[in-house]
């Protein structure tokens, strides 16, 4: 049974649709990513799931509780990190977490234990008594996650958790999100493809307020990648006729690498033919140095979907996206 059910969800700001007829399910323990360009409607969906924005039509429920009618119950179930961590700069980390814990109905006897737990999980022990206003962006983001975890919620909603982080902080944040897997149901949004694929079990691609595709990386590639460019680096000669004659191969482009004296073959084909191409090259006597696909599979899926959506966008599409 699904923990989160979203059915026909729409949100309008005046005449503009930020979210249009979105439906999906999320199972307990899943880590799900909302992927979309800036303004696609990801944050609006997360705000509605966070029960602090009401949908214009359709609805969503969490563990059977409606985000509209049982918002108090829903808010007890969730931990929410908005795109900007909700921090009171004049407070210090521990008093802030204590304040949030009380707001979120943590039993008084358990508060210290919960604070110690989230400080450890989010690596905040060293700055536990620092004023929030003096923390770096990375630490502020961690405190934002700590406040979302303080009441040990079943669902954690993270809106662009890696936004503005440096490479080291991104790795730390990724590890932190991965550590939540299995213990919580996590739904996060991002416009960074690589992060979504590394942290999420399933991806929902949102464009102009619509859910345009969903599945894991392999499923999305299978469904939406119809062609692939395979690049092989070889030494010596190979049977080009045999390569071109392979079923599914459309075109082979040959180039010579002047520096290393090797050949670079770019094979345009229908689907993933890397294994067959490698076998053909080796059998024909070439020394295969490297073989791989050109570009990222999910990136191709994403770009194809966004382009397709752009082609079918109604005239007010750009304005709609601006509200996401």
């Amino acid at each position, binding site marked *: 049974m699904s923990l989160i059910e979203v059915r026909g969800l729409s*949100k309008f*700001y005046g005449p503009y649709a930020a979210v249009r007829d979105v439906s999906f399910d999320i199972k307990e323990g899943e880590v799900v990513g909302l992927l979309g360009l800036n303004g696609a409607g990801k944050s*609006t969906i997360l*705000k509605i799931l*966070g*029960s*602090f*924005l*009401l949908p214009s039509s359709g609805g969503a429920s969490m563990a059977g509780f409606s985000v509209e009618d049982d918002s*108090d*119950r829903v*808010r*007890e179930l*969730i931990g*929410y990190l*908005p795109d*900007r*961590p*909700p*921090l*009171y*700069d*004049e*407070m210090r980390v521990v008093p802030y977490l204590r*304040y*949030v814990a*009380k*707001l*979120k*109905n943590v039993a008084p006897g358990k508060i210290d234990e919960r604070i110690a737990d989230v400080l450890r999980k989010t690596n905040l022990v060293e700055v536990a008594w620092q004023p929030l206003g003096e923390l770096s962006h990375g630490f502020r983001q961690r405190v934002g996650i700590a*406040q979302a975890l303080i009441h040990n919620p079943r669902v954690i909603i993270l809106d662009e958790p890696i936004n503005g982080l440096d490479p080291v902080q991104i790795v730390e944040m990724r590890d932190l999100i991965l550590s939540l897997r299995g213990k919580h149901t996590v739904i996060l949004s991002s416009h960074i493809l690589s992060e979504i694929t590394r942290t999420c079990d399933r991806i929902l691609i949102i464009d102009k307020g619509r859910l345009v595709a969903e599945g894991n990386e392999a499923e999305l590639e299978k469904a939406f990648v119809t062609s692939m460019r395979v690049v092989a680096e070889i030494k010596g000669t190979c049977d080009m006729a045999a390569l071109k004659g392979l079923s599914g191969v459309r075109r082979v482009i040959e180039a010579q690498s002047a520096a290393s004296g090797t050949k670079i073959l770019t094979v345009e084909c229908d689907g993933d033919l890397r294994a067959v191409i490698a076998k053909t090259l080796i059998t024909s006597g070439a020394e295969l140095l490297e073989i791989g696909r050109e570009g990222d599979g999910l990136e191709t899926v994403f770009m194809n979907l966004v382009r397709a959506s752009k082609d079918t966008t109604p005239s007010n599409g750009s304005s709609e996206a601006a509200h996401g």
Partner: protein
Amino acid sequence: MDKTWHIASRELAAFFNTWMGYVIVAAALVIDGLLFNAFAVGNEPKLSAEVLADFFYFASGMSMVAGIFLAMRLMAEEKQNGTIALLYSSPVSERQVIYGKFLSALLFSMILQVASLYMPGLVMVHGKISVGHIAAGYLCLTLLGATTISLTLFVSTLAPNQLVAAVGGAFGTVILLTLWMLAKVVDQPFKDIFGWLSIHNDHFTPFSNGIVNLKDLMFYVGLVVFFLECATRALAGRRCQG
């Protein structure tokens, strides 16, 4: 009530943890002191009760101005800093948020009133006034402060930033203050309605003379509850609109 008090105590601590609260208290006390010395005490011989009534008259202005400055940030700052997301995503009602915010500013305003007690204290030491007179006057200062706090809190809920909240709160306060003037130039029944709605004239004077009328007390309490409920509705409305 527990959550209301919890929100109020954090907000009250914020007044002490930032320069804002200290600046408001210091400015209000300095201006109160100057007005007390220049106008309430003055150079002319006066009865102690008159000095006290004049003190309450001038202090009422400061109480209202301080109320506007204390309340302008209450909700507008939450929106500006994005911390409103924490309140929206926590199991806490809009009414608990609004009443908690109001309570914090009211308590801070009362601290300001207590700090000004030395002035009526001086009158008491050097003249002859009753404790009841002082208590009635301070009750009214608190009620006037509460009225402007609740009004500005309502505007702060709607306003995009603190400046707009302060201007809106000040504008609303001036309207409520000057309704008695409007009452003079309009016919019945508006004459009575505007006169009754004015927050200073008819409702304030008895308090400043040491008289507490239940109808005046209920007028201020009613106005405060009205603005707080408007703010609660406005906050709930913002949740619908995003």
